[in-house]
């Protein structure tokens, strides 16, 4: 498998919603296609938008129409493998689950793709640190619209 060589999933392994849906409101993107015996995301979703077919080893899928982009699944997923993408504000937003020291709101950062390569620059739009996420924080990155499919990490500037 290509992804076991690279250590990350490629865009072709991931299901994305339509551009139209992305313009409406945020939406959850699950990057977990490896049949892990795991299901908290299904139970976490208040809207029943995440399902696992068959047994616990199947991969979860999001119904992009019922997903409201609330982000609850991001804070629950043990693999930190769910992201939010959003084009509703006229610029690009990607939210990533994060368990390192949090950056500051408004801080300029280097934007990294799934392989850790710098693909642009952006800023920290929002940080959500909710009790129910148990120390997993949600970092929302502001960026160029074109980047939301590829940006999954960031590096703080020194």
């Amino acid at each position: 498998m290509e992804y076991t060589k690279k250590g990350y999933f490629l865009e072709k392994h991931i299901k994305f919603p339509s551009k139209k849906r992305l313009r409406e409101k945020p939406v959850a993107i699950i990057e977990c296609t490896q049949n892990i015996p795991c299901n908290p995301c299904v139970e976490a979703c208040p809207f029943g938008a995440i399902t696992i077919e068959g047994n616990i080893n199947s991969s979860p899928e999001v119904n992009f129409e019922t997903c409201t982009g609330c982000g609850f699944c991001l804070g629950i997923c043990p693999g930190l493998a769910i992201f939010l993408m959003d084009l509703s504000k006229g610029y690009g937003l990607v939210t990533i689950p994060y368990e390192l020291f949090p950056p500051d709101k408004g801080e300029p950062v280097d934007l990294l793709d799934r392989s850790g390569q710098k693909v642009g620059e952006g800023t920290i739009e929002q940080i959500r640190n909710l009790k129910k996420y148990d120390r997993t924080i949600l970092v929302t990155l502001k960026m160029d619209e074109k980047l939301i499919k590829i940006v999954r990490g960031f590096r703080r500037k020194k």
Partner: protein
Amino acid sequence: MRLKKHPILKFKRKKEITFFYEGQPIIAYEDEPIAAALHAAGITTLSESFRFHRARGFFCAIGKCASCVMEVDGVSNVKTCIVPAMQGMKVKKQIKAKVSPEEFSGPKVFKQTPVIKTDFAIVGGGPAGLSAAIYAARFGIKPMIIEENFLMGGQLIKQTHKFFGSKSHYASIRGIDIAKILINDAQEKGVDIWTSSSVVGFFSGNTLGVIKEGQYYKVKAKTILISTGASEKSISFPGNDLPGVYGAGAIQTLMNVYGIIPGKRVLILGAGNIGVIVAYQLLQAGIEVVAVAEALPRIGAYIVHSAKLKRLGVPIFTSHTISHVFGKDRVEQAEIVEINNKWQKISGTEKRLDVDTVGLAVGLSPSVEILSQAGANMTYIPELGGYITLHNINMETSIPGTFIAGDISGIEEASSAMLEGRIAGLNATNKIIGENKEIEQEITKNQKELVELREGPFGEKIRIGNQKLYKEAENNGIY
């Protein structure tokens, strides 16, 4: 150096104390092991090799190997990684083998031997042992857990990540918090917990020899569970004995249990789950991970775990192994090299890395010593991690009334260790109180969950291993 802050953990340090290392005062905190406090003070050499006087540091940090033994208050062979420092303690490097009775100074243990009788003795207080105790206690049994470390919880106490699984396996709860849940549950149910207690013998009639605080006890048990876990493997390369070359789990223990910085720049060897998880936890503590190197052409870990590292810019080199570690008394540099599909080094591909710590995440060996010495039937199954005690699906070994659970029965994850512990604990209970329908139902339920947990692609190795195991167990009359 000690960690001051951490995004996930809070380090509550207890009272400050002073002990002496070769006459030099060292500051430590209560409930900090001697080796950890020395590491915090910058002392990583704990002993010397007997012949060539090469520096020796610790390796596993959980009392499995003998790399950290020192002389403490005149007693030799003390595993300083699991013995807490105490006010005024005198610690010395052990630079000479002490094997003869005249030279060996140890506790005088044979004067009086109290005998303890119990229904269910559990050796090892990790996720398997605790789960067994909790499930047995649910049916009125009062188990005792004998744990060599001074802390309960096994390796859960250093896992800062949330666990996979379903609700019944504490999914999405951090390992550190699962440990708390299990320990509290066992305490509330009246489980008799013996920490800092070593099992040193397994005699006929399900009797254990135990040393606790210099006193020797005999524990006569109706049923026994051995849930001793596993120890980290090493691999051979020049310099692999230098302080700074640690088991990846030892790095976790230092950093996440005691809040001590293992090093500033780290190379991790092995991109299985342990390797990539420890690498992410190093970043969490603010420590630089220079690279992860993996000998296989692919990453063995769950890709969601390796993806967390990659998107933060940590390089993972597949088809690479470590060829050399350089340094005088501790790691100063490491060299990795690419290997071909015949596992031969490709010359010209060497990369020198400036690191002060190398974490080996190259696999685990089940800790089978007690049972192999007791004469339990053993076998060798590579898929399960090496030498394994034969056992059936009820986790019973060839010694009637003696069970195993957790990594000792095959290297796997904490979620399966908990299920195996429940199954073993329930079967032990069945033996003690006589067969009971409710217990039978619970056993079936947990066995079903375990099968389900192993159904996916990541369970393949354990499925193949267990198939071999059950066949051999059956041939040996263990049904």
